C-alpha cells in the first residue's frame, strides 16, 4: 500500500540523506521517530510528493509518485494523501467548512458539503462549521485540520508532529482521533514525531538516526 525503496534526498550537492525503506500495508499505523533534524519531515514530504527524491521511489497505492508530474501529481496528492501539518495551516480567510470544501475542490473532486459537515461532526466540531480558524481554540483548530486531512477519504494520512504543542490530555485525544479516523478510512497512518507520549498509541515504529 505504501512503500519506499532506497530513498535518497540531496539537500545540496554535498549533503545527502539516505532513508530506510518503509513498507506499510493498508490500514497499518506507524510512528516515525527520531531526534530533530534526522529527516522525519523530509521523509513525510517525499511521501507526499512535495519533494522529489534524488534517488529511489515512493509508491502509494500501487502508483509510483516519481512517474507523475505537475497537475497529475497535485491531483493525486489531493485525492489520496491527507496531511496534518505541525502548524495546522488552516486558511485564515476561509471558514472551517470552506477549509474542508476547498480540499475537495483543490483535489478536483466534487464539492460535497454534507460530507464535509459529517467529517466535522465525527471530530466533534460540527457546530464550528461557519467559524473562521482565528475564532477556534487550539484544540478545535487541531481537530479542524485533521478533518480537512480526512475529508477526501485518503489512502495515506501523514501527520507531522501533531502533538508537539499539546498537553498530555489533548495529545492523547489527538492521537486517538488520528488513529480512529485512519481506521475508518482504511488508510495508512504515518506520524512523524519526537514526542515520547505517542508510543502508547501506535505499535509500529521506525527509528531514524541522527542527521547523516
Amino acid at each position, binding site marked *: 500500500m505504501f512503500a519506499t525503496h532506497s530513498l535518497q534526498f540531496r539537500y545540496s550537492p554535498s549533503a545527502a540523506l539516505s532513508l530506510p525503506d518503509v513498507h506499510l500495508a493498508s490500514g497499518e499505523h506507524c510512528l516515525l521517530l527520531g531526534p530533530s533534524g534526522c529527516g522525519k519531515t523530509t521523509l513525510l514530504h517525499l511521501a*507526499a510528493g*512535495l519533494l522529489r527524491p534524488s534517488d529511489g521511489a515512493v509508491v502509494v497505492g500501487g502508483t509510483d509518485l516519481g512517474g507523475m508530474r505537475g497537475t497529475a501529481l*497535485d491531483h493525486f496528492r489531493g485525492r489520496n494523501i491527507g496531511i496534518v501539518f505541525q502548524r495546522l*495551516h488552516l486558511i485564515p*480567510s476561509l471558514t472551517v467548512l470552506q477549509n474542508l470544501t476547498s480540499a475537495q475542490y*483543490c483535489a478536483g473532486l466534487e464539492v460535497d458539503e454534507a460530507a464535509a459537515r459529517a467529517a466535522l461532526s465525527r471530530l466533534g466540531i460540527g457546530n464550528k462549521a461557519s467559524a473562521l480558524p482565528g475564532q477556534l481554540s487550539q484544540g478545535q483548530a487541531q481537530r479542524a485540520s485533521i478533518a480537512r486531512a480526512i475529508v477526501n477519504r485518503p489512502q495515506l494520512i501523514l501527520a507531522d508532529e501533531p502533538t508537539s504543542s499539546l498537553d498530555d490530555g489533548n495529545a492523547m485525544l489527538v492521537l486517538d482521533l488520528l488513529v480512529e479516523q485512519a481506521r475508518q478510512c482504511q488508510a495508512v497512518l504515518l506520524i512523524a514525531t519526537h514526542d515520547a507520549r505517542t508510543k502508547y498509541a501506535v505499535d509500529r515504529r521506525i527509528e531514524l538516526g541522527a542527521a547523516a
Partner: protein
Amino acid sequence: MNLLTLSLADVRHRKLANSLHLILLTLGVAIITALLLISSEIGGRLERDAEGIDMVIGAKGSPLQLILSTVYHLDIPTGNIPLDEASRWAKNPMVAQAIPLSLGDNTKGFRIVGTTTDLVQHYQGRLRGGRLWQRPMEAVIGSEVARAGLKLDQPFVGVHCLSAGGHAHADHPYQVVGVLEPTGTVLDRLILTSLDSVWEIHAQHHHDADDHDEDAAEDHAADHGAEGEPAMPGDAGAAYDPSREITALLIQYRSPLAAISLPRMVNSQSKLQAAVPAFETARLLQLLGLGFDTLRALAGVLIVTAALSAFIALYNAMETRQYDLAVLRCLGASRGRVVAILWIQAIALSTAGTLLGLLLAHAAVEAIGRLANTARGVDLSGLVVLPAELPILLLPLLVGSVAALIPAWRAYRSDIAATLSGA
C-alpha cells in the same frame, strides 16, 4: 467552493488594506475619466456652436474676442459696425449667407440678440411653443432661458449691458412669443428678437443717455446699434437699413475658395475685421489644452501610484499568502490554479476600482454640470458615455495582470515543502 471564493475570501478577510488600494485606483480612474468627459464636452460644444459659421465680420479688435462675443456669447463685443458697410460684404458673391447680430442687453444674465430668423434656422432650432418674432419687442427664448423662469406670453425687461445688473429699459418691455426646443448649442441660452427691437430701445435710450453715462466702459463698445437714430417702431423691413449699426455678421461661404481671399479682403479693404471661428477656436483650445495636459499628467501619476500600490499590496499579501497557497497546493491545487487565484484577486480589485472610478467621474461631472450656473457657457452632463472611455475599461486587465505577475510567478515557482516547513 470555487476559484472565485478562494480569491475573494482574502479580499474580504483583509478589508482595510484592500479598500485602501481600491480607493487609490478609483480616484486615479475617476480623475482621468472626468478630464476626458469635460474636455470632450467643452470641445464638442465649441465645435457645435461654430458649425457652419465660416467667418465673422465685426469691429476691429481682438479676433478671439470677436469670436467669443458673437459665436459663443461669452465675451463682450469689440464694437459696432455700420450696417451699410456690413451689408456690402453680405452681398459679396462669395458669401452664401450672412446673419446680422446686434448685442447690447440682457435679462437675468441671458443675452438679448437682435438678429434675423436665419439664426434660428442656422442652429436648427425648432419651436416648442408659440411662434417666431414678427414685430419689434417680440422675443423667442432658448430652452435654458425658459428653464430659468421665462414663460410664453410673459413680458420682460431688457437690462442694458451684457451681464445682469445694469440699467433697465423699464419702459420698453419685451413679450415672449415663442420658446425653442433644446439644441445643445449656444442658441439655448439666447433671447432672440428682431434687429428693430434693439434699435428701438437704444434709440430711445440714446435720448436720455445722460441719465446713465456711468455705465461701465465695457458696455460702451457694444452699446448701440442706434447712435443718433430716431426710433422707427414697426419697421420690420429695416434689417438692412444702410444708416444703422450692428455688432457683427456671421458669414457662411459659398465655396471653400472664399476662405483664402475673403477674410484678407475684409481686413485690408475696410475698417472692419474678419475673424475665422475655426482658427480662433483652435487657438483657444490650445490655450486650454495646456491645463488639460497638466491635469492629465497628474491623473496619470495617480493611476501609476494606484497601480503601484495595488502591486505592492498584492506582493505583500503574497508573503502571507505563500502559506495559504502552499497549503492549497498540498490539498491538490495545481500551479496554474494557484496563479489563477492570485490573478482573479488582482483583477477583481482593479476592475472594481475602475468601475467605481468611471461611476464617480460621471457622477461628479453631472454634479458640476448641475451646480454650476448654466449661463456660464458650457453645460456639462455626466450622462454621456464617450468612446474614449473604452480603453479605460482595459486598464484593470493591465494593472491587475502586471500587479499579479511577480507574486504569481513566485507562487508558481515556490517550493511547497520549504515554504511549509519554514513556517
